[in-house]
């Protein structure tokens, strides 16, 4: 419960309720399509204006589908304790967020659960997305 409260507080802190991000959450993602993706981390781009990490997920037919997970800028993630070094290729990640409006295999990674159970906030600070 404590970690969940901390997560909620961190999301609220990051989002802040005031449009502030590089672009609006609502311009790219569909807030009615909350999804969970569980997959193997295969690539990390610790870059501006957003970090991206990519996970390979087996679909219902057993085929591997690659999902791109968009998160905040490196500086913002780092300052909240979400460090590049926490993402290790080959790890299984559980990523909760919202799917891109255009139907691509791209999601806004608002909550990332690492193999050891640590929960990281991936939301872009102040993008107006769900808190």
């Amino acid at each position: 419960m404590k970690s969940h409260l901390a997560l909620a507080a961190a999301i609220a802190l990051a989002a802040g309720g005031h449009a502030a991000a590089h672009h609006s959450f609502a311009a790219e993602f569909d807030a009615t399509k909350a999804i969970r993706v569980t997959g193997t981390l295969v690539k990390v781009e610790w870059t501006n204006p957003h970090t991206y990490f990519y996970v390979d997920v087996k679909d219902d037919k057993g085929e591997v589908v690659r999902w791109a997970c968009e998160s905040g800028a490196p500086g913002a993630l780092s300052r909240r304790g979400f460090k590049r070094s926490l993402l290790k290729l080959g790890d299984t990640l559980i990523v909760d967020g919202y799917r891109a409006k255009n139907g691509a295999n791209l999601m806004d990674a608002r909550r990332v659960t690492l193999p050891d159970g640590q929960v990281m906030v991936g939301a872009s600070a102040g993008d107006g997305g769900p808190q």
Partner: protein
Amino acid sequence: MIGRVTRTTLAAVACAALGAVLLAQERPMQLDDTKVPKGRPAPRMANGKPDFSGYWKGTTQTRPGGNIGKDLPGWKLPLTPAGEAALKHNLTATVDPEAVCIIGGTPRHNASGLPFEVLQGANKIVFMYWYSYFRLVPFTAGLKHSDDPDPSFFGEEIGRWEGDTLVIDSIGFKDEKVWIDENANPHSDALHVVERWTRPDYNHIHVDTLIEDPKFYTRSFTYARTWALGEPDEQIQEYSCSENNVDAAHLGFGPGPIRADGTRGYDNPAPLPPPVPKK
């Protein structure tokens, strides 16, 4: 003695732990202004003018954020028919210019939720923004606008002092790839902006803005805002906007839905899946 050493050691350990926690926290991008101390006099330059230098953060009292119509009833902007058409164009045929690394410009940066930093000299003032943009405003006495300024995102900016108020008068704006605020409202190349900056006390900076644009707005309107001072060790940091702009290919036109409270975003988002149970 042993007890004192132990207490000192414990205190040091506690401070170190607290420091580690603080370092791991993301500092808020906005401050609750009711908790910001007031009344300490503003610092002054050697010439006696107020010094606006500092790292400035928006406050949670600024509502709706990102909306240049914040101070108008119902946030209703006085658009002309041409302005209505320009808004429709922005909503249905343009992506957010800032999202593709184009300068937000004036007055959009003053409606942004992102902090900004000011450095002030004797004859110039620099506003530095996240995304690695800056505007440099001269306020040497006697400056006048040019007859035919090159269009730009911040416009041709002329500063002057009126007592303790720094007045920045700007004309010569671009009319393409510009949104006047986060909600995709428009402006034309006829935009004229007059900002009146003050530092009411040490911890606050304030702007009163007059916005005129006879092509897109039937009358002038105003936008006022106050920011609060960040911590001394906070500053603008590196941000290379076009390094890896994967999202640009996935952005829809316009800002997406606008909430009932005048901000961009969804009113009733679906909840995320429940958190993963602890092992």
